[in-house]
């Protein structure tokens, strides 16, 4: 099943067409890659799907077993409800909150209380909080961050912050996650670990991963399918091998094997 479908999306900034009549589909349960040169429009695609931008044209269809939702009809804070969550290209954590609280914010839509129940600790409050906390600790354990639970998010090194952002996304109980350059700033061996982690997440949490990445090692290693874009338009879609072999992609994005 195609869990996510982008149909003829166009997004302009003034005269600049950042995304240009772009269409592609993401298979449920896959790891799907979106690549392209700097400024090709990848982050803009993510921002449009999660409703931070209003594309001028197109549809974004999210499919569940028995339903089809056009995300463009909703506001950005409603998207998480449908099981779609994202990370940001420039890590966006809640810096002055603890690592654990960052995780709990991820559970926001799943904790059903209101401020009167919370303020007066009316019945039912404690259970919901505790469930969320347990789950957060589980995920932190899975990511190897358990020890840091009570520390400030902002004082964590970059690598931890990236993992935490990933953990926070998992807290929303997503069916599909959008990751914008998860490997940026990591060295090769760290990237290797990330590859393993992403596959594990896909399997254990039973979700679809849709990622933007410039690290070709990672992309080629783990992606089931890739779409390459340039100037907001699709150049080609295919398996990693097909993409690597494509002369257009070579020319626009990868560059030849010429020496320095």
């Amino acid at each position, binding site marked *: 099943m195609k869990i996510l479908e982008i149909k003829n999306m166009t997004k302009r900034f003034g005269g600049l067409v950042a995304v240009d009549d772009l269409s592609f589909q993401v298979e449920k349960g896959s790891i799907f890659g979106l690549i392209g040169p700097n400024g090709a429009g990848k982050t803009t695609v993510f921002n449009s799907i999660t409703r931070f931008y209003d594309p001028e044209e197109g549809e974004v269809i999210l499919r569940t077993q028995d339903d089809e939702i056009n995300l463009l009809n909703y506001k950005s804070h409603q998207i998480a409800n449908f099981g779609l969550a994202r990370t940001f290209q420039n890590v966006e954590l809640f810096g002055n909150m603890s690592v654990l609280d960052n995780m709990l914010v991820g559970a926001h839509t799943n904790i059903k209380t209101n*401020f009167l129940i*919370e303020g007066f600790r009316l019945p039912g409050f404690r259970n919901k909080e505790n469930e969320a906390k347990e789950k957060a600790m589980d995920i932190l354990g899975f990511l190897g961050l358990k020890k840091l639970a009570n520390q*400030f998010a902002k004082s964590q090194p970059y690598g931890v912050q990236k993992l935490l952002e990933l953990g926070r996304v998992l807290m929303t109980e997503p069916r599909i996650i959008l990751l914008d350059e998860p490997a940026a700033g990591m060295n090769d061996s760290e990237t290797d670990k990330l590859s393993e982690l992403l596959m594990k997440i896909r399997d254990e949490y039973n979700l679809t991963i849709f990622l933007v990445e410039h690290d070709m090692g990672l992309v080629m290693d783990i992606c089931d399918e890739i779409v390459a874009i340039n100037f907001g338009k699709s150049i080609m879609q295919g398996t990693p091998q097909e993409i690597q072999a494509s002369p257009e992609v070579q020319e626009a994005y990868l560059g030849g094997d010429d020496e320095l």
Partner: protein
Amino acid sequence: MAIMKLFNNNPYFKYILGTIIFMIIVFIDLQIGLFASRTVNLLIRVVYFSIVAIGFNILLGYAGQISLGHAAFMGFGAYLTAFISNNFGLGFLPTIILSGLIPMIFGIVLGLVALRLERLYLAIATLGIGVTIEFVFREWVWFTNGFSGARLSRPEIFGFAFNNSRHFLLLATFILFLVVLFTYNLIRSKTGRALSAMRDSNHAAQAMGISLLKYKLIAFALSAFYVGLAGSLYAYAERYVHPSTWGAELSLDMLAMVVIGGLASIGGSITGAGFLVLVPRLVQDLPVIGGITNINFILTGLAMILVIRFMPIGIYNWFDYKVIQPFYYKMLNFDDPGGDD
């Protein structure tokens, strides 16, 4: 040691203990007259300004929204209390709750403004709104009694009249205690986290399903409620409400309270209220220089700047971070929490 474990494990413990100790002192004072009457009045003022500061801190410290018009809400609460108790004779409890709820509605309106405006623009626009409301107080003589001011008497609960200031101090402290508990619960649950998330990153908060509209409105509504409630206590405590009390200066004082005491902290709110109520009075009493014109203003200003210079995270937060926490961790052999400088 055991006490300290208790402190650390039961989060309410320090508030309960603090309240009980404070109330006992006031009780003793009631018997033997420990404090001067002026001290009691100042303490009452610290108590209701603590509620103001907690409300303002929910808005500024937790939700990251600024308002320089909240003095008007406090005035509104105070006038409502005078108006209700003079015209309808409702009891203490319904009166203070109404005096919080009605400003809360106006708080929501301010929240709608805040949806469009940000930072400095929001600050100055709310400052303007506050001044506007202050002028309305002057003109609506039927409601406020104009420049003659509104007068009222101390409250009565179940036939007991709180005419003695010490009795009233106990009552006010108890209300503060309830406010602290409510706030504490709130900020450590979904709502509180959503507010802080909104403060730290708009975008990530939305991506996690937090509606900025809803939580901005909650932040403004709650803070207006608290401030209105405190205004009600003001009215009962001072028994007189005058229109020139509710201007920009008081709003700026509220801002100073939470920043000087410590943002996003209940203890900081109370500390800040204490600072802004007590420091100007203390410097007035300094023996040698007390006679110099305006020395109270000059020294208060200096004290504010010195706090920012040496404790930029606020007095309470600074102590918590530099003294109390290291102390706990040493005594209880916890891992050092780290954190950055």
